[in-house]
């Protein structure tokens, strides 16, 4: 018997399914949300006790056998002509809470087969632990290919999507928490390695997308959204209670600007920093609750190095804004826990590097600056004002990612709590070079980065 508030029953139901129980649970749904607030009137609970008794004594599950349940391989949609069939497909997707309001590319057999040429894995192979939570729809290679087809993607994007799903669903990341929470988190997917020069992922101007010259950021991110919504059940107001729901169309999928920092000492790429080799293709995923740009050129320091300190102070203030209390009060012992990320334009990285700052020095300095006073925590209601002040620890380190274009700017990707960041290697198919040739034939040569 599970008690939840009205409007949250869909999320709880999805969570129950994600635990392997199938899409049913004895949940009382009729109690108003206001009943769960501090000091609220509990009359509805008193009047609804029979519903609890029903859940404990009478409710019967319809699913009585364990096993895999498939919802059917194909759906037929008709129309008086092709455009009309497409329109009908879009309407059907919206009615089933699968769509996102944009046109859907039909995932017909031929298109999915074409997308599947992006991998040598079998269609029914599970990706990572094999489930997208909270609802627990199976994360198979075919599910990824279907989602990418619907998103308008291409085969060479499939390995990146598969690796993104693998990293995101790593149990350490607890994606079931951040995709379902009220805190409106979205996935940030950072790609490193040679593949960043092969697949059209944005890394500079407008890096958070969409960028017409780098469409893969949008299609991979949209496919990830489809998987989260359809397999994971994160329909707004049902499986996801994100109040504002940032970046939910296509998340933030980008290539780190490796070229921009390649000669900088002490500025390894994100993947190298996380223990991978430069020649490995790696996807790193972390949740963020919003992105905020911080400008450098409005600093008023009398000298350039003081201006940099001022810039970093502002970045620390921006990144430290959300609730990172766990990191401040308790000692963080997990090396994969981060308190958000900085995205720094390559010019900013170069400027800092020229002044003797490397990544580690920046992180150490900013962590120190992010540390709040006990009084500020009391003032913001973050700690019990009656409690004795305790030592405030440094926040966990933040990730630094090179991205964005030539201005001296930074972007704070605010943390969702103290998140665990996860990575996965990208597995390329044997005929990878053929796929790239085809992409070049279809889309034209890869656009050159500006100012390189």
């Amino acid at each position, binding site marked *: *018997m599970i008690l939840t508030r009205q409007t949250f029953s869909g999320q709880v139901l999805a969570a129950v399914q994600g635990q392997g129980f199938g899409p049913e649970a004895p949940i009382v749904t009729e109690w108003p949300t206001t009943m769960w607030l501090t000091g609220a009137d509990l009359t509805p609970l008193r009047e609804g006790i029979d519903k*609890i008794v029903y859940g404990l004594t009478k409710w019967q599950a319809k699913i009585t056998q364990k*096993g*895999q349940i498939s919802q059917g391989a194909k759906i037929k949609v008709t129309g008086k002509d092709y455009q009309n069939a497409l329109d009908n497909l879009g309407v059907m997707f919206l009615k089933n809470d699968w769509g996102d309001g944009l046109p859907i590319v039909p995932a017909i057999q031929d298109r999915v087969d074409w997308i599947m040429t992006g991998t040598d894995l079998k269609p029914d192979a599970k990706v990572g632990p094999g489930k997208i939570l909270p609802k627990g*729809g199976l994360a198979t290679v*075919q599910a990824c290919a279907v989602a990418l087809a619907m998103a308008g993607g291409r085969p060479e994007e499939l390995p990146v999507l598969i690796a993104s799903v693998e990293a995101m669903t790593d149990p350490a990341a607890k994606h079931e928490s951040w995709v379902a929470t009220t805190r409106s988190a979205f996935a940030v997917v950072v790609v490193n390695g040679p593949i960043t020069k092969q697949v059209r992922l944005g890394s500079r101007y407008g890096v958070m997308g969409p960028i017409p010259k780098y469409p893969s950021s949008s299609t991979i991110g949209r496919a990830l959204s489809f998987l989260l919504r359809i397999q994971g059940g994160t329909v707004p107001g049902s499986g996801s209670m994100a109040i504002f729901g940032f970046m939910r169309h296509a998340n933030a999928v980008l290539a780190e600007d490796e070229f921009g920092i390649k000669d900088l000492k002490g500025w390894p790429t994100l993947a190298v920093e996380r223990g991978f080799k430069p020649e490995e293709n790696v996807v790193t995923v972390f949740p963020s609750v919003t992105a905020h740009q911080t400008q450098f050129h409005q600093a008023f320091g009398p000298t350039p190095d003081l201006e940099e300190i001022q810039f970093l102070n502002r970045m620390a203030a921006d990144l430290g804004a959300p609730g990172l209390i766990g990191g401040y009060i308790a000692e963080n012992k997990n090396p994969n826990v981060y308190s958000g990320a900085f995205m720094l334009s390559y010019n900013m990285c170069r400027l800092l590097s020229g002044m003797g700052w490397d990544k580690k020095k920046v992180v150490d300095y900013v962590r120190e600056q992010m540390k709040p006073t006990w009084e500020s925590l009391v003032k913001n209601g973050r700690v019990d004002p009656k409690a004795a002040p305790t030592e405030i620890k440094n926040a966990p380190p933040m990730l630094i990612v090179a991205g964005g274009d030539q201005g001296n700017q930074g972007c704070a990707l605010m943390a969702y709590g103290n998140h665990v960041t996860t990575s996965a290697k990208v597995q390329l198919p044997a005929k990878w070079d053929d796929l790239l040739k085809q992409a070049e034939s279809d889309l034209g040569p890869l656009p050159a980065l500006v100012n390189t």
Partner: protein
Amino acid sequence: MKRLVKWLVLASFLVALAAVFTPAAVAQTPTATGTPVTLAVFDPTGAYEVTNLHAQRLSTLNDKVVCEISSYNWEWDRTFPVIRELLQKQFPTVKVVPWDKMGINSREDEENHVLLKKMVAEKGCQAAIIGNAG
């Protein structure tokens, strides 16, 4: 005369052609953009796996042990006592183990799951109320 007829025929043909290819006419002509189409697309919901079955319900709560498992959220300390009181009123011999006697919460992590199983067995729970979710 022949020339005039030719011009009239040509003019009529052009008028008819213009009528067919105005946007409104195109929209009203189903065959202008093709014939009826059926798209067979993959069901995007794919599949899911049932690995656990819900427990059988109890026929009555009398003489049974019902355990409260708290998330320590959303007024749990006010709602559980109300539920307890009302259950005991309806089932006089039910034994309710209050949330603060379970010594656990509904937090989602492996360590807690192990403890939860242990406490459910130790307290002899035959039913559980978990709350408050949200």
